[in-house]
């Protein structure tokens, strides 16, 4: 009886491990630059994104910002419920983020709602910026000048987009992996290496 149970468990473990490997191998690996260049193609897809962590929210570790070689290119990363929180120790590290790319479309209705939420003292996710700053002083009914400016800017961006909305993207991360950088490499050199790796993979395909 014991042998039978053990045998069934062993098979189950084997099948599970095979399944896991297969899933990981099918996930596309990109760097932040490649991702941001054609992010609409990755919405709701599982990806592994490599980049450098520029900031981890120190209050709760509920978000981090991943930057490319060009630090103007950045994407917000939010942990899944299962992952919980990010450790501040990863700040400045080169990492691989495993997760799903998500999009939030900001249109006039969303902005109106955001304005109401701000007035009610609710901090909207859209108020977070890629530099890691987030104003948590949203407790007054009257909006301050910075908030009014933010809303005005968003409305202008939506109007200028020509699509009726602008998009905010983030990665819902279920696993984070720190990548060791060899002593002779800088952050820029690492990004170049990833690009070379991708080109090689594409050539092999």
């Amino acid at each position, binding site marked *: 009886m014991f042998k039978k149970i053990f045998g069934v468990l062993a098979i189950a473990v084997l099948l599970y491990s095979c399944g896991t490997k297969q899933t990981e191998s099918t996930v596309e690996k990109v760097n932040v630059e490649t991702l941001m260049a054609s992010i609409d193609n990755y919405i709701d897809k599982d990806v592994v994104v490599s980049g*450098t962590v*520029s900031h981890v929210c*120190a*209050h*709760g*570790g*509920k978000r981090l910002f991943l*930057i490319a070689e060009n*630090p103007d290119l950045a994407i917000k990363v939010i942990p899944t*419920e*299962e992952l*919980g*929180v990010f450790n*501040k*120790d990863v*700040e*400045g*590290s*080169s990492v691989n983020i495993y997760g799903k790319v998500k999009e939030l479309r900001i249109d006039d209705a969303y902005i109106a709602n955001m304005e109401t939420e701000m007035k009610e003292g609710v901090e909207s996710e859209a108020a977070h910026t890629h*530099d890691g700053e987030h104003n*948590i*002083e949203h407790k007054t009914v009257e909006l301050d000048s910075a908030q009014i400016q933010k809303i005005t800017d968003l409305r202008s961006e939506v109007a200028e987009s020509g699509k009726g909305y602008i998009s905010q993207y983030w990665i819902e991360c279920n696993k984070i992996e720190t990548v060791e*950088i060899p*002593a*002779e*490499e*800088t*952050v820029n050199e690492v990004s170049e290496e990833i690009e070379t790796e991708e080109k090689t993979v594409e050539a092999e395909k």
Partner: protein
Amino acid sequence: MKIRKLNRDLHRDLGYIFFAMTVIYGLSGIALNHIDDWNPNYIIRSKEISATISTVDFKSLKRENVISLLNEVAPGEKYKNHYFPEEGTLKIFIKDGSIQLDTQTGQGKLETSKRRAIFHQFNYLHYNPRKWWTIVSDIFAGSLILLAFTGLFVLKGKNGITGRGAWLTSVGIIVPLIFLLLYYWNVF
């Protein structure tokens, strides 16, 4: 008689079991209540620094140059990475912190963060990091309600719920009620 004993035993045992959880949630509750005033997870220290930048070529900055710069402004700090967040600013990541340096003036700020003992761990749990912990904390929350009700009937007599207990329980009900009237229903 039996019910009262059962109630007392339940109150006592739940109190023992959830002693640690009560301390965890109580302490982190206070910490998170004041999250606007302090960082309950990390002790963040910052220090003004000044670097000699006349010999540094920031346009072709190599890792070893940054390490030399780091050794000058913050000896003993371990280099992790660096980048230019904007033109004229160099950010050097070190173990447990970062340095932001103005490449024009050489002036900058060294910021280090250290986990706040006990609070970091307790707040981590308070943030409900994982599914299973959520289940544990739900059980705890349910048990708190049970503790509250069983607590009402631990004692009999003048110190029980029909005497002193009635007054104190009323005070405990009135306080949140006043705040609801004040803030939620805007009565006053």
